[in-house]
C-alpha cells in the first residue's frame, strides 16, 4: 500500500511556548480515509495545518513521498487541499467564481483551463450556477460546499477537512456528507461529529493534548465508550441519566 502521509516524531510549539503537538508518528495509506477526533484544543487543526506546510514543526513530513519543504511547497499545496473550519476565512473574494478560481490562477493555468476547472469543481459540490453570487449572501451549508470547491479546482489528491459539519443543521450536514463521500480522492477529516466520521472514514485516531492516544478502525474506536469518555468525546454515565429524567 502507498503511504500518502508519513509523519515521524513531529512536535510543534506555538509562538507563546505552549506545546501543540508532541512526538506525533502517523502513516496514512492510500486505501483509507482518516478521521482525527479529539476534544477542543487537542491539536487537531494544528496537525492539519502541518500537512501542507502552513505550520512547520521540528521534523519533516512527507506527503505522497514529497517532503513538505520550501522548494516543494507549491506542489504539496496543490496536492493537499485544505478546507478551513470557518468558510468566511476560506472565501475571501467578492464572487464565488473568483474564489474557486483563486487556486488555479495562482498555479498559472490558462484562462480556459481556469474556467473549466471552476465549472467542474462547482459541479462536484452541486453548486453550479453560483459563479456570480457573493459569498456573503450564501447560507452556511452553501458556503461550506463552495469552500470545498475552492480546493477541488486544484484537483487535489488528498482532501483535508477541518470540522466540515460545524454550524450545519442535520439536513445540510447529511447532504454535505453525501457530497464528500462521492469525491474520489483520499480524505483526512478532523471533527467532533461522530456520525459524520462513521459515514466517511475507515480509520480513526484520537488526539488529546497534542498526543495520539488511540489509533484503529473507526468501528472499534467509536464503539469503545470507555475510551471516548476518557477523552471527553462521550458523556459520562451520570450525565446520560439526564436524558432519562426528562
Amino acid at each position: 500500500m502507498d503511504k500518502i502521509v508519513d509523519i515521524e516524531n513531529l512536535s510543534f510549539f506555538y509562538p507563546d511556548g505552549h506545546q501543540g503537538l508532541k512526538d506525533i508518528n502517523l502513516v496514512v495509506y492510500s486505501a483509507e480515509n482518516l478521521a482525527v477526533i479529539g476534544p477542543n484544543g487537542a491539536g487537531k487543526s494544528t496537525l492539519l495545518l502541518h500537512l501542507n506546510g502552513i505550520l512547520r514543526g521540528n521534523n519533516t513530513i512527507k506527503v505522497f513521498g514529497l517532503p513538505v519543504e520550501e522548494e516543494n511547497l507549491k506542489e504539496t499545496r496543490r496536492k493537499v487541499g485544505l478546507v478551513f473550519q470557518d468558510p468566511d476565512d476560506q472565501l475571501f473574494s467578492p464572487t464565488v467564481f473568483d474564489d474557486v478560481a483563486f487556486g488555479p490562477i495562482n498555479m498559472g493555468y490558462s484562462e480556459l483551463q481556469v474556467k473549466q476547472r471552476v465549472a467542474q469543481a462547482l459541479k462536484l459540490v452541486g453548486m453550479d450556477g453560483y459563479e456570480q453570487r457573493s459569498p456573503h449572501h450564501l447560507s452556511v451549508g452553501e458556503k461550506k460546499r463552495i469552500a470545498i470547491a475552492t480546493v477541488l479546482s486544484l484537483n487535489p489528491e488528498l482532501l483535508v477537512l477541518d470540522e466540515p459539519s460545524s454550524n450545519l443543521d442535520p439536513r445540510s450536514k447529511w447532504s454535505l456528507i453525501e457530497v464528500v463521500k462521492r469525491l474520489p480522492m483520499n480524505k483526512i477529516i478532523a471533527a467532533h461529529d461522530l456520525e459524520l466520521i462513521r459515514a466517511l472514514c475507515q480509520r480513526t485516531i484520537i488526539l488529546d493534548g497534542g498526543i495520539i492516544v488511540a489509533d484503529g478502525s473507526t468501528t472499534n474506536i467509536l464503539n469503545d465508550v470507555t475510551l471516548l469518555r476518557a477523552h471527553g468525546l462521550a458523556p459520562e454515565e451520570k450525565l446520560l441519566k439526564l436524558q432519562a429524567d426528562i
Partner: protein
Amino acid sequence: MKHSFIDKYSDLDSLIHRLDPRTKFIASLVFIISVVLTPTSNWRAFALHLCLVTSLLIIAKLPPFYVLKRSLVIFPFVLLVAVFIPFLKPGEIAGSYNIWLWQVSVTYAGLLILANVAVKAWLCIFSLILLSATTKLVDLLKGLKQLGIPKVIILILSFMYRYIFVLVDEAMRMRQARDSRSFGGGRLRQLKTLGNMIGTLFIRSYERGESIYAAMLCRGFGDEIRSLRQLGFKRIDASFGVAFGLVIISSAIIFW
C-alpha cells in the same frame, strides 16, 4: 444577515450599465473636475451639469428617491466644513446678529460661496452615485486595476467589500450580547464597554486576517497577485465617451 450592498442597483440593465467600468470611471472623474473648476457665479454651467447628470441617472433607470436619499448623506460633511464661510468672508453685510457676547455678521459673498460649495458637492455626489450604482464593485475594481491603480490597493478594496458585512454582523452580535446583559449603569461604564467591544473587534479582525492569509497560502498564493479576465472597450464606450466629452467641453466654452 442581509445587507444592502454598495452597488445595490448594479444588476439592472441599461445603456449606462453596459458601459465599460473604465469609461464610467474616467467620465465621472472628468465631470467632477469640470464641476469643481467652474467659476463660482456660473450658474448656467451648473444647470447644464445638472441636466447632464440627471439625464444619465434617468437613462440608468435608477429610482429617483434612492438617488436623492443617498445624495443627502454627504451634506453633514459639507455643512461642517462650509458653514462658517458666510461669517468669515469679508464683503457686503447681509445680516448681523448678536449671539451672547459676540456680534457676528453674514456677508453676501460668503453666502454665495456656501451655496456654491453645496451645489458642487451635490453634483459630484450625483455622478458618484451614478458610477457606483451602475457598476458592480468587482468590475469597477477590475477596471481600476487595468487603469494602473496598484494591485495592493485593489486587493485591499476587494477585501473590504468582502469583509465589511462580516464585521458588521460580528459587531451587531456583540451589541446584542451586550444589550442582553447590560442593566443601565453610568455613561462612563457604557463607554468603557464600548471601548472593550472595539478592541475585541479589532483583535478578531486581526486574527481573521491571519486565517485568510493562511487560506490564501493553501491555494498557492505567492508574492505575486495574479488575475484573470481583461475588460474590453466596446463601440458604445467610444460613442458615450465622445458625447460626454463634447457636453463637458461645450459647457466650459459657452459659459466660461
